[in-house]
């Protein structure tokens, strides 16, 4: 845990943009820079015809980035804390959402889950997310075993699959995460769909883990007296 925060002093740089700092740290590391450029150029390359980009290639490049670059770089980019809109928009743009996330139509979340489960890797990453980010009342942090790191890792592990999650807007005050889906048209499965979607949108474990990473307080989870 400590290694992720070395060189990152939230008190000393409260005025600066943490997401910009995270991009700088990545650009100054050859491996991170190369793989970041790899997915950005793939995901922002416009194709001729109706498709804005190749989502398949973009997802593959994103998976390579999150698989091969250490968390000290990738987590900083994904979970940087923000005080203004420009920063929050940069954070939302991290995964190049116009290609990797947004789509013309929003599928039903249970249908999307079915698509994910048909792919063995997506299926196991989703299971990891549910295990490690499952909100619980038995711990102080709402996370299983108070393990923020495992939850953040499982979140990052979903990026580049059909269940790619992202920030829904550039709000600085409230963080809302969701995959690109809705529960419209769920029929008699509506309750199950809402329950599934809430694991992303209203999950205190995930929200606490992201906020704690952003303000560097996840090393010590004990309450301040």
């Amino acid at each position, binding site marked *: 845990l400590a290694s992720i925060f070395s060189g990152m002093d939230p008190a000393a740089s409260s005025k600066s*943009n943490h997401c*910009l700092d995270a*991009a*700088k740290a990545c*650009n100054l590391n050859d491996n991170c820079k190369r793989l970041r*450029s790899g997915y950005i150029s793939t*995901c922002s390359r416009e194709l001729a015809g109706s498709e804005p980009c190749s989502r398949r290639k973009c997802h593959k490049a994103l998976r390579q980035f999150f698989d091969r670059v250490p968390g000290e770089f990738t987590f900083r980019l994904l979970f940087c804390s923000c005080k203004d809109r420009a920063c929050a*928009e*940069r954070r939302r*743009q991290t995964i190049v959402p116009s290609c990797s996330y947004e789509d013309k139509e929003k599928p039903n979340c249970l249908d999307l889950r079915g698509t994910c489960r048909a792919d063995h890797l997506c299926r196991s990453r989703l299971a990891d997310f549910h295990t490690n980010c499952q909100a619980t009342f038995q711990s102080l942090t709402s996370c299983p075993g108070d393990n923020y790191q495992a939850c953040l890792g499982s979140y990052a592990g979903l990026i580049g699959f059909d269940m790619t999650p992202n920030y829904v807007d550039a709000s600085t005050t409230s963080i809302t995460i969701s995959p690109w889906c809705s529960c419209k048209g769920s029929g008699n499965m509506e309750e199950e769909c809402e329950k599934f979607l809430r694991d992303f949108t209203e999950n205190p474990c995930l929200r606490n883990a992201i906020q704690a990473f952003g303000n560097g307080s996840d090393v010590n989870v004990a309450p301040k007296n």
Partner: protein
Amino acid sequence: SRRKRARARHKPCELRELEVSVSELGLGYESDETVLFRYCSGTCEAAVRSYDLSLKSMRSRRRIRREKVRARPCCRPLAYDDDVSFLDAYNRYYTVNELSAKECGCV
């Protein structure tokens, strides 16, 4: 001091690096992102070839006139770095290639 400056001037051709903002690159992009700019710097005195000496001689004997010739090796990139991508101030991503030197030589 003067001697220090003289020594710095005579450093052989090698790769140097600078941390610069994308806006400072002067390529017309507006972005506060910082990138590593690697460039070639130094002298090439040790790399003078018979070619250079002969060319100089031809020029002084006026066998070559009114032509742009270079009778000295030049410290330049031999290879360029991988692409660099960044998000600009208007939330658009751009990728720039051959921005940075990867290897330098006297050519």
